[in-house]
């Protein structure tokens, strides 16, 4: 029952709010309330998971392995908390600033449903179904704003994602054919008995699918287009929440279901990740609009997650989870701050920029430290150099934006609503707070990584 509560709250909330006009203040406030309730339910579920182990339920009262199994373990809860938190913050930001379209609150709730379902399921096809629910909601969200430029970018986003869905479906069907079951535990057990070449091919298919859908290097070309043209709140939702599906999917399917293939392709992953970091950083340094710079920065940051995944082992996986969570927070604050004007916003942007670069005492420092440690444990010196260089480059490109947009302020533009600015500043202070007291987050990530390898709670 507790397992289903966040899902039920967001789903029924989405359906209940669909007929109403989202532009009205009351509807927006109710939507934010529903998301707060779902977040609280998720925290309650998380506490149960951390104290007494994973919570499971098999749909339809069928035996496990036949019915669809829903499971909340450390990894799923960690990602669900950060994704729902990001969506909540972005929705609150938009409601405070004034909603432009009638379907926004309901769409965000549908996306939360999809995301919660993705992180709380232990069945590979159910993963695909909830993934598609979240993506369909995000397609419609990407058109928020109605200008022709938005629509073209949203179409590109949609078509690339549909291709990714097709490839993912092919991978899931092949995985079923090779193992004979759809349950994640069953697949993890039986995959070792399958021919290595087939499973390697399936792993590559799934990696390509996630790469297409989330803009990993080298499938990243559509990302700057989409992020350039959308509104800041939607860009924050897409980048910070949806990208988490990619990290979670790679962790779950790679390290959880097919660890042998992950270790086989580890060097490839590290190379792709490093290239992504460098390419994203170099592109971000060239002169561009603020939205594009942050988009290229996202492409680069995901490279760090790939590198951590490639290194593997408990240290590498913990670093991957930690970096995903911190990256989501950073991107949220960056995108939201870029859309605002007025004093205090520059401070928030600067704090988030320090976090992306990995400067103490921000949360990003611990993310970089975790990756540094993983690289040092695996004795890969080029990686350490890469981490430092990447951090330095991110300082450069983010402070170029700061200098252009905040330092040389033009006082002609009117300041944005105070509520939105206060929200963004609070989030930025949260980043610093985590930087000063990182233990809970570190424990959370370690727990999540342990859940992957079968230990922990």
């Amino acid at each position: 029952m507790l397992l289903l509560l966040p899902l039920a709250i967001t789903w029924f909330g989405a359906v209940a709010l669909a007929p109403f006009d989202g532009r009205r203040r009351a509807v927006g406030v109710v939507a934010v309330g529903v998301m707060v309730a779902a977040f609280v339910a998720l925290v309650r579920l998380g506490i149960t998971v951390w104290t007494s182990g994973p919570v499971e339920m098999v749909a339809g009262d069928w035996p496990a392995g036949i019915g669809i199994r829903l499971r909340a373990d450390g990894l799923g809860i960690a990602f669900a908390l950060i994704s729902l938190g990001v969506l909540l913050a972005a929705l609150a930001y938009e409601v405070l600033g004034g909603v432009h379209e009638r379907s926004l609150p309901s769409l965000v709730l549908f996306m939360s449903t999809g995301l919660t379902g993705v992180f709380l399921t232990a069945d590979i096809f159910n993963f695909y179904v909830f993934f598609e629910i979240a993506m369909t909601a995000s397609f419609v969200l990407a058109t928020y704003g109605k200008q022709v430029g938005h629509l073209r970018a949203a179409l590109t986003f949609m078509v690339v994602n549909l291709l990714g869905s097709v490839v993912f479906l092919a991978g899931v069907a092949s995985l079923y054919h090779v193992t004979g079951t759809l349950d994640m535990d069953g697949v993890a057990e039986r995959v070792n008995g399958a021919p290595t070449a087939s499973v390697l091919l399936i792993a590559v298919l799934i990696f390509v699918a996630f790469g297409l859908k989330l803009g990993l290097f080298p499938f990243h070309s559509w990302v700057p287009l989409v992020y350039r043209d959308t509104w800041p709140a939607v860009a924050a939702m897409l980048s910070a929440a949806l990208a988490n599906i990619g990290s979670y999917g790679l962790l779950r399917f790679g390290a959880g279901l097919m660890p042998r293939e992950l270790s086989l392709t580890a060097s490839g992953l590290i190379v792709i990740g490093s290239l992504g970091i460098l390419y994203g950083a170099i592109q971000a340094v060239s002169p561009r609009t603020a939205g594009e710079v942050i988009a290229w920065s996202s492409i680069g940051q995901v490279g760090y997650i790939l590198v951590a995944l490639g290194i593997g082992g408990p240290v590498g996986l913990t670093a991957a989870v930690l970096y995903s969570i911190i990256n989501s927070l950073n991107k949220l604050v960056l995108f939201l701050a870029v859309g605002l004007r007025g004093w205090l916003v520059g401070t928030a942007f600067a704090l988030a920029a320090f976090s992306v670069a990995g400067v103490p005492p921000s949360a990003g420092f611990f993310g970089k430290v975790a990756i540094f440690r993983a690289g040092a444990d695996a004795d890969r010196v080029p990686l350490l150099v890469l981490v430092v260089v990447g951090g330095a480059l991110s300082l450069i490109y983010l402070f170029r934006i700061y200098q252009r947009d905040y330092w040389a302020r033009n006082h002609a533009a009117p300041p944005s609503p105070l509520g939105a600015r206060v929200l963004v500043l609070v989030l930025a202070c949260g980043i610093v707070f985590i930087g000063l007291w990182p233990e809970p987050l570190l424990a959370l990530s370690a727990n999540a990584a342990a859940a992957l390898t079968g230990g922990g709670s």
Partner: protein
Amino acid sequence: MSMSTILTRTITRLIFLPTLVTAVAVLVKGYAGAGDGFSAGVIAGTGVVIQFLAFGPRELVARYPSLRRAPLLAWSGLLLGLVTAFAPVIWGDPIMTLYPRPGEDVPHLGLLAFHTAVLFDAAVFLLVFGFIVSVLGTIGNRYGSEGADS
């Protein structure tokens, strides 16, 4: 707008009710044979689309004014489906548990089985049918009226 001949209009008018009956039949027999809510919804939706093509939006809505309510139909279908899925959680069973449970007797009325699976399929039918007709209403209206403006 309607460019259809008298032959098209007559046949289309005659075929509407059998299409809907076929759709409901596919829905009901899905419990024990091939058929389910989705295909039933698509068949019924296609029936309305054929009427739309032959008659145009204005005449269609004049003839069957309840088609305006299609978004409400879709919404209630979605709500019914969600309630059918989540209701067992309230009394402790897992999500999507269907009653009567396997092995128990299912009361029948001819081919219609009183089973919550049929209720769920009906919800999907309402959702798909309502969705198709709503899309017709939104997009079709622009094309139906002369001198479509944006």
